[in-house]
């Protein structure tokens, strides 16, 4: 390499280095921000991935309408999210994850006393009504409160089945006298296994509310 060429090469290298200095400086200054941005953007922990880890419990609601429009509604809510967000809502009767009820007596029924009675009693059927209009069954079975209603009034029958773990019912009524503790109920629900909570079927709609570990509806 001639001296002239070597000189030009050296100069070019110096120029490039000098030109890169702002880049290097900026890279050093911005690197923590870049790292922070990556950490916020990337799905970091396994619980954040599309497939939930088993500890994630999801409440699913699905409504399928068989009318002409064929509407389908799918709602998937992580119980943890609901548990964290509910206490932040302070509006009307909802405060700190609890719903205030004016009186625990609803239609002259002392709900709290009723729940206490059910809790302490053994498994069995508490209410059985069979008529031409409807069949109603309220029972306690395997630590679950079960309510089954079959409406036969119309030619198009409708059927409602509610199955709530007793621990959830207990947690719901664990707050003060005139309150329902929704957060405690959700927390109790998250400890339960996969279960169907509500099922409603009539001639037009099918509604399902269930709990599992998947973040998608089936």
């Amino acid at each position, binding site marked *: 390499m001639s001296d002239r060429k070597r000189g030009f090469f050296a100069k070019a290298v110096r120029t490039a280095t000098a030109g890169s200095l*702002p880049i290097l400086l*900026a890279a050093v200054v911005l690197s923590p921000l870049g790292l922070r941005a990556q950490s*916020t*953007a990337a799905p970091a922990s396994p619980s954040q991935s599309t497939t939930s880890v088993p500890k994630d419990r999801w409440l699913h609601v699905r409504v399928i309408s068989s009318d002409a429009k064929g509407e389908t509604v799918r709602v998937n809510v992580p119980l943890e999210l609901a548990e964290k967000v509910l206490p932040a809502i302070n509006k009307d009767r909802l405060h700190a994850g609890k719903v205030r009820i004016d009186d625990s007596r609803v239609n002259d029924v002392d709900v709290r006393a009723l729940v206490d009675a059910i809790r302490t009693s053994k498994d069995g059927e508490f209410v059985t009504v069979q008529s031409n209009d409807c069949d109603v069954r309220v029972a306690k079975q395997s630590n679950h409160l079960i309510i089954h209603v079959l409406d036969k009034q119309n030619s198009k029958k409708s059927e409602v089945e509610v199955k709530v773990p007793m621990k959830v019912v207990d947690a719901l009524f664990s707050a003060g006298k005139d309150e329902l503790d929704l957060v405690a109920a959700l927390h109790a629900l998250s400890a339960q296994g996969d279960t169907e909570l509500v099922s409603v079927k009539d001639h037009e709609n099918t509604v399902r509310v269930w709990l599992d570990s998947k973040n998608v509806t089936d």
Partner: protein
Amino acid sequence: MMLLAKAALGLGSTLVLAGAYTMREGVIRIDVDEFRSGGSHVHLWVPAAAVPMAMHFVPREHMRHASEEAREALPILHAVVKELKKYPDTQFVEIEDSDQHVQIRTHQGKLQIDVDAPDQKVHVLCPLSTIEDVTSQLEEHAPGA
């Protein structure tokens, strides 16, 4: 000549870095199309990182006013976004029938709201980290904060 080259390289690299920094969190995308006479058509693409930066230049009294207006919603929004960040790719709500489709989901750490109806189309995409930054800034400006 060399001085010019140095200056151009420095300026160019600074612009590239500034662009990369501005776009590091992606873009906030808002598309609204109303299919009726006089319906609005809004198409907005804003670098997500620019919004919290721009908020620093908003006059203090305006920020305080905005914060006061959003006072009730801020703790809820803060809690929701904080939790949503744990679920970066999840469908939360989907409603569909023969002629409309609505979905609320997170996709790659962004909140995505899509409404496809015969009379309107709305698509909103916003990084959760941007919502969190904006919420935090509004909370900082809340009276008594």
